[in-house]
């Protein structure tokens, strides 16, 4: 009988750093005075995330395993974990302003966000279905609370309750799927399961198909693919804007990370239900885009657009080649930055008003110095979401379409491209309203003031936009990293 040794802890050093940071933030909150906490908590959290990213970089290439082969720090998990942490850092930069402006002084916010990231990291670096489940739950429970953080606001309560109930329901599906897979293969460890499934006739057992279907439903809820998307618009609209940004970026990336890990690495291609999956992909893209056209609330529009983007990623999931998995990783990062940025601009208050509808954006670009910069940033994010060249969105879509055409998915690519054209309308509408419409009732407003916290948010968003442009012009570095991580998981 072997026991856990110190070397088992090495692959989870980044996770441990984040847990310690979270506890530290919690304690600082307890001893801090009423004025001091505002800066210390976010800065401490960012510091912890930076140290953890550094630790990940040290682990890169080591392929260390621990805890009886249930935790692995391979290139794949490390790359995704860095994506989550970068998302976390950006979220914190935009949260500080939002929290100050909306009197959301619950300092547990940063703690929950750190724990949520820890959950995603555990989920991604795990090779055991039960560990994946635990990680998923750590992530989900933290995000349920974050969604309902503003407990006096009715819409936030509604969003939190919906998310909790549907999330718990989908978790049930996931767990049931895990138990059926265990029943069919006799193991919860992914390598053993995949070895079993690759034997001839393994799929004739109805438990396998049923279990995999339930797993797809469970993960599908988290990444919001049609028909499991109904909660997304309500939750993103009701949640505090930075939380919506975090969920659309990090939680989705985490969902796709385990989707790749479970479905695309070992299950034979003939058994992946291509017919069902491409229907889901087309539905997800089309429903997302068509519904986004009809929205007047910008957060709802972004929520539907995030569904549409999950649809584009599903195209790559259908294709399932190594190039397609690379494109999923690239797209997850690119979308994390774009979605994050778009929600981030919305979280900045303009003239003491929160931006909700398109009308609120009218004349935004001319409202003041902060707004001028924010409008440029928002345009960058919109163009990237649209997929214009020189942005990360273009390279991401290009890679997905290229991988799909390469494997002969001609019509799927055509439909995805057509969807991309539909999205032109609602993304450009934002830019049109910001630059070309007159501000309603501009005379009554006083000159807008630039606060320190909004500068902090703008700085974070500037870095995000710079990242998008960098990834759009020099995609090679990241694509090579993604290819490296794909080779790490294809067994």
């Amino acid at each position, binding site marked *: 009988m072997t*026991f*856990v*040794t*110190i070397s088992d802890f090495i692959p989870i050093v980044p996770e441990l750093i984040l*847990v310690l940071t979270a*506890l530290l933030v*919690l*304690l600082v909150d*307890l001893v801090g005075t009423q004025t001091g906490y505002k800066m210390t908590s976010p800065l401490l959290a960012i510091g912890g995330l930076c140290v953890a990213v550094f630790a990940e970089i040290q682990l890169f290439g080591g392929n260390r395993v621990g805890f009886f082969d249930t935790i692995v720090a391979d290139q794949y998990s490390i790359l995704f974990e860095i994506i989550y942490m970068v998302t976390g850092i950006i979220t914190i930069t935009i949260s500080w302003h939002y929290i100050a402006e909306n009197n959301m002084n619950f300092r547990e916010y940063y703690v929950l966000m750190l724990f949520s990231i820890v959950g995603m990291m555990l989920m991604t670096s795990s090779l055991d279905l039960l560990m994946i489940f635990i990680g998923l739950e750590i992530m989900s429970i933290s995000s349920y609370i974050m969604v309902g953080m503003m407990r006096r606001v009715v819409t936030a309560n509604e969003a939190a309750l919906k998310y909790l109930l549907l999330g718990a329901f989908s978790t049930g599906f996931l767990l049931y799927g895990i138990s059926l897979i265990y029943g069919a293969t006799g193991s919860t460890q992914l390598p053993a399961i995949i070895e079993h499934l690759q034997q001839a006739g393994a799929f004739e057992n109805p438990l396998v198909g049923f279990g995999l279907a339930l797993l797809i439903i469970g993960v599908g809820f988290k990444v919001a693919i049609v028909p499991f998307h109904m909660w997304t618009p309500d939750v993103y609209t009701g949640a505090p804007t930075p939380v919506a940004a975090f969920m659309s970026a990090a939680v989705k990336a985490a969902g796709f990370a385990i989707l790749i890990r479970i479905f695309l690495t070992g299950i034979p291609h003939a058994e992946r239900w291509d017919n069902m999956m491409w229907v889901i992909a087309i539905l997800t893209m089309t429903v997302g885009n068509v519904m986004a056209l009809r929205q007047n609330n910008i957060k709802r529009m972004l929520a539907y657009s995030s569904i549409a983007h999950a649809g584009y990623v599903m195209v790559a999931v259908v294709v399932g080649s190594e190039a397609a998995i690379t494109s999923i990783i690239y797209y997850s990062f690119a979308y994390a930055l774009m979605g994050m940025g778009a929600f981030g601009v919305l979280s900045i208050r303009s003239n003491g008003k929160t931006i909700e509808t398109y009308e609120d954006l009218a004349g935004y670009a001319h409202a003041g110095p902060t707004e001028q910069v924010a409008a440029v940033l928002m345009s960058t994010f919109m163009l990237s979401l649209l997929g214009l060249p020189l942005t990360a969105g273009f390279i991401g879509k290009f890679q997905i379409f290229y991988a799909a055409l390469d494997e002969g998915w001609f019509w799927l690519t055509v439909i995805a491209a057509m969807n991309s054209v539909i999205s032109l309308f609602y993304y450009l509408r934002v830019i049109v309203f910001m630059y070309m419409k007159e501000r309603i009732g501009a005379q009554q407003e006083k000159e807008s003031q630039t606060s320190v916290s909004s500068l902090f948010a703008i700085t974070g968003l500037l870095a995000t936009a710079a990242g998008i442009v960098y990834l759009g012009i020099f995609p090679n570095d990241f694509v090579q990293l993604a290819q490296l991580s794909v080779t790490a998981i294809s067994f």
Partner: protein
Amino acid sequence: MDYFLVLLLAGLGVTLVGGGLIASRLFAPRNPGGVKNEAYECGEETIGSSWVHFNVGYYLFALIFLIFDVEAAFLFPWAVVFRDLGGVAFLEVGIFILVLIVGLIYAWRKGVLEWV
């Protein structure tokens, strides 16, 4: 064949319980009305609506009690095989208790332990 006993047990259970209910339905006299229809051995008659706010303190106390209850459940097995597990396990339990203590300090500072 192994499951025959289970089936037998299940059948026996259903027969006993169901038989009792059916027998009382058939043979017991029934005269409802008056005092017999009041809440009986199930609590008092409510005064006013039962949909009122009540102190959430009970819940928080129960939650904190539960956490330390679970802690004890984890510590006992560890203490039994303490010598075999060695230093790393000691470290792990230390981390576990540390996390719980931070939680307790948090609850304490937030005023959960004071009965309002």
